């Protein structure tokens, strides 16, 4: 099934998301961010009715106040369908899809460790990929988490001022970086392409 047909079939089955489906290149289809229940319906439909039988992987993204999880699945024609769900950081609760796509299991464990997702129905097993003794409640792939404040020796996360300033500090860092970048740009325009 090609990308165009996938979009048509999804539009038929889920008219409410139809207009937001995107196909930036011939073998790619992206859904918009969906709430978890809707996401599950689309994922099961893609597996059962559209024959997207291969689970590729999951991309977790920080969406400001929310977390986005993009499940990539593909079919026999090599089309990659990106089905996405969004949940608030304050309650990042989703259901495990590893019973539908067993190949997603390890990637879901990654979402738990790196983004702090709470995944219902995830089979028991070792966590992945953070080490034992990693401090609870620290999710390194969230944007507000700054590796500068993580002490590898004591395995503790110590932002400089109490509470609050993670984001403020990150913003300052960004300002510094922006200034530095502007300076760099003047001196070395053109990047790495030299010939």
């Amino acid at each position: 099934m090609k990308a165009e047909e996938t979009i048509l079939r999804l539009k038929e089955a889920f008219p409410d998301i139809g207009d937001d489906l995107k196909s930036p290149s011939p073998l790619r289809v992206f859904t918009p961010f969906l709430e978890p229940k809707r996401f599950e319906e689309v994922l099961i439909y893609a597996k059962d009715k559209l024959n997207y039988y291969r689970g590729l992987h999951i991309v977790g993204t920080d969406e400001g106040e929310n977390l986005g999880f993009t499940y990539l699945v593909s079919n026999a024609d090599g089309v990659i369908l990106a089905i996405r769900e969004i949940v608030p950081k304050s309650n990042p609760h989703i259901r495990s899809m590893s019973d539908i796509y067993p190949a997603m299991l390890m990637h879901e464990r990654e979402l738990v460790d790196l983004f702090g997702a709470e995944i219902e129905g995830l089979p028991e097993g070792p966590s992945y990929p953070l080490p034992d003794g990693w401090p609870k409640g620290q999710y390194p792939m969230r944007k507000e988490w700054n590796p500068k404040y993580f002490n590898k020796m004591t395995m503790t996360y110590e932002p400089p001022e109490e509470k609050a300033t993670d984001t403020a500090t990150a913003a300052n860092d960004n300002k510094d970086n922006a200034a530095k970048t502007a300076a760099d740009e003047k001196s070395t325009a053109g990047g790495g392409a030299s010939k």
Partner: protein
Amino acid sequence: MSEGLTIPIGPQHPSLKEPVSFLITLDGEVVKKAVIELGYNHRGLEKACESRTYIQDLYIIERVCGICSHAHSYAYCRCVEELAGLQTPRRAEYIRGIVGELERLHSHLLWLGVAGHEIGFDTLFMYTWRDRERVLDLLAEIGGNRVNYGINTIGGVRRDLDENICQHILDVMDGLEEQIKYYAELANTEATLIARLAGIGILTRDDVIKYGAVGPVARAAGIMDDVRIVEPYGVFTEIKVNGVTDDHADVYGRTVVRIKEMLESIRLIRLMVKEMPDGPISVRAPRRIPTGEIIIRVEAPRGEDVHYLRSNGTDKPDRVRVRAPSEANWHGMKHMLEGFHFADVPIIIAAIDPCYSCTDRAIMLRSDKGDTVTDWESLRRTGIERYKKMGIDPSKIRMRTSGV
């Protein structure tokens, strides 16, 4: 009745050169249950990429894996190039193709050696690793380094291939082809090798689909998932790849697939060297990349390498996600181990070619006494002299191959 004996293998173990932990529960000699624990090598590269510029990230991404560094940097460059709307020169794509196939050769030769070593066939290990050296020397000649060749840049490649290098590549291919045909014959006729590899670590076609296995593991079960064929990119839009599959679905099948793929890589390299067009090797890339997101796949030696990149209009990416082929193959591992003998565990694990970053070492040795640089020939001479003192004269032993 006992619950069975549970044996921990790893994270540090002589037969597994990289940290990974297995808890194997046995019923007699048969593996009843396997629990795999990964993550010892997690270095936070994806997070690191978010605070660095696109060109700095290229060097981080290249170090995701020592063996398939080109596949990763190529996938990353393609992500950035497509988001920036860059059209890379054809010559650059040919050079990327040649380096990619050389990488496949050295990776598969490395694997064949490791497989030989795991089943106690160390002669094969020594033969294949000697041949791999020739490929690594070529890569060093092309990119300046044996691994992490740094050939890719955003917008093309960093180094051109001149006539001498092209001729050298062709010469090495002649010698390698002879050797690899010998390995193919070995795989077809050597009874011990076949007996040791056939029928173990089976992952059937259905299981490959279920667990999302990729690369030679999938192709050994008859599934053609080669990205160069499924979704041709770069030079492979012009030069067609003859896909290799097998129907054994076991470790033997994976061996056959890899050996045949090496012969195909040699054919492709010869063709690419012959057909390589003249012209520039890179185009100028902007520092800031327009907002967008992209999924790119490249066929690495171990299988499909998937990169996701999201840009936000600045000179740093918003999100970089790398799904290396080994990561996809771990899901089926538990299934491959259960029901087979404990003695087969190392070769079954090795058969997916898990990413052992063991490659980097010096290309030349400096003597203790000063600036003298020891090359391959003098190293060999030193070895022969050393053995002569011990009463053995290995100088009559001839190297098997010619033309290298």
